[in-house]
């Protein structure tokens, strides 16, 4: 693995109330790469993302670019350049598309750079430009997912955490979205941690992948290795 990882977690444990969901998860994300986190429902994928940005209480060590971030608040972690596209998209339904996007850049200073980034996301997702003044709640599911990704991009993030971006979208729309994610990685070098149930598509996009089962990493490797792993194929790819 060349260079230091952008994100590294060691012995990550987290849960809700008395129910522990993560029982010591370790992973590392290489700079400028897409890492997929695969697993069944309830395996702890979403909780892992939430633990990284302090939306749930967690123990263990989390390093961003080498510096500890565990124990810091969500709002501070955002300021370090971690953008989270949450489960359910997190759209501000009563605000307009543009207001949603501008909120993504809330912690940034420098008006010119923000305007440039607004143009940049409109170039990736021209549909959002058409819907600019429209109330975000009236957008279709696919458009809201594009909006969620775009809102994250407006942070000019080092690292994006994507929670099931394919959820509820038509296969064609998912393909389109994943192509754009690939472009964002290649062109801008944004690192991504991608949580997906759609393992086949995730492995096509990702560079590396981790498989978690009941709160533990059971398998890790390059996306290609996991694609050809018999167990993964039978349980998650379905052939």
């Amino acid at each position, binding site marked *: 693995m060349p260079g230091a990882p952008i994100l590294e977690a060691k012995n990550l444990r987290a849960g809700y109330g008395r129910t522990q969901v993560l029982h010591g998860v370790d992973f590392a994300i290489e700079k400028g790469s897409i890492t997929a986190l695969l697993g069944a429902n309830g395996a702890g994928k979403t909780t892992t993302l939430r633990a990284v940005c302090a939306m749930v209480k967690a123990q263990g060590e989390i390093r961003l670019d080498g510096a500890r971030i565990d124990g810091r608040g969500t*709002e501070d972690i955002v300021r370090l350049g971690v953008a989270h596209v949450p489960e359910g998209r997190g759209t501000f339904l009563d605000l307009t598309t543009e207001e949603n996007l501008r909120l993504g850049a809330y912690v940034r200073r420098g008006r010119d750079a923000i305007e440039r980034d607004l143009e940049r996301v409109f170039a990736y997702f021209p549909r959002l430009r058409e819907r600019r003044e429209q109330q975000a709640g009236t957008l279709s599911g696919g458009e809201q997912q594009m909006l969620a990704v775009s809102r994250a991009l407006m*942070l000019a993030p080092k690292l994006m955490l994507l929670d099931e971006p394919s959820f509820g979208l038509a296969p064609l729309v998912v393909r389109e979205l994943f192509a754009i994610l690939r472009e964002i990685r290649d062109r801008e070098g944004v690192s991504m941690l991608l949580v997906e149930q759609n393992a086949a598509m995730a492995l096509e996009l990702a560079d590396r992948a981790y498989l978690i089962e009941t709160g533990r990493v059971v398998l890790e490797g390059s996306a290609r290795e996991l694609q050809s792993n018999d167990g993964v194929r039978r349980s998650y790819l379905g052939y």
Partner: protein
Amino acid sequence: MEAFLHQVMAGLATGGVYASLALALVMIYHATHLVNFAQGEMAMFSTYLAWSLIDAGMPYWPAFALTVGISFVAGIVIERVVIRPVEHAPVLAVVVVFIALLVILNSVAGWIYTYTIKPFPSPFPQEMALGRFMSPHELGAIGVTLLVLVALFLFFRFTPLGLAMRAAAQNPASARLVGIRVGWMLALGWGLAAAVGAVAGMMMAPIVYLDPNMMTGILLYAFAAALLGGIDSPLGAVVGGFAVGVLENVLGSFVIGSELKRSVALVLIVGVLLIRPSGFFGKVSVTRV
């Protein structure tokens, strides 16, 4: 006809005050889904503060500005110190805190300033304006109210901070994920509500005179106004405020007499809740079970 017009105009003036206070209620309701029963007493206390400053020899407008500033800070402090600890408590616990705040502010005001009614100065000239229909203070109060409303609208609509406050009220989890400090936005909302309330109190005091109970009835009207407009709609609160002001004045003067004026608010509250609980501008939310 002339008397009628006069009552409508006077109703608009007090309606502006109801509108401001209703807007303060709506602002806090928007962020927390709770009605701050102490909003009126907070405004009353601010008005006493202004009275003290003016009594100590400060000219009206500096005293006005200082009162608004202090009320803003006090609103933030109240949220941080009193409301924050019960953030995740059941609704009834929070309501009890609101009522405690109401009683404490009322008693402390009575203790410091006594329950004797005091006159409160108006900053506007004494000569009559608009013929016989409206006193200069009434006209000025409407003007000040409208200024406050426009300023608030511009703030929430066009500034990044206003946008962040709307976002924090609407979707706190998502707001945190873009880096908005949601707790501070709530506190800021309390500060703004307290400041708007202070303006409402200072505009009302020359009409109803200053005493610790001056806001009890006004809060009732403001509550009716907020409900009539739709408790989650700022525009509704403003329209509702003016409507309630006029209705109360006209009905009180020509139909039911001033003794029963307050029941107008109660009838409105019960009526709106029975016939159209979301008010005229509020959102109807349907929950599937």
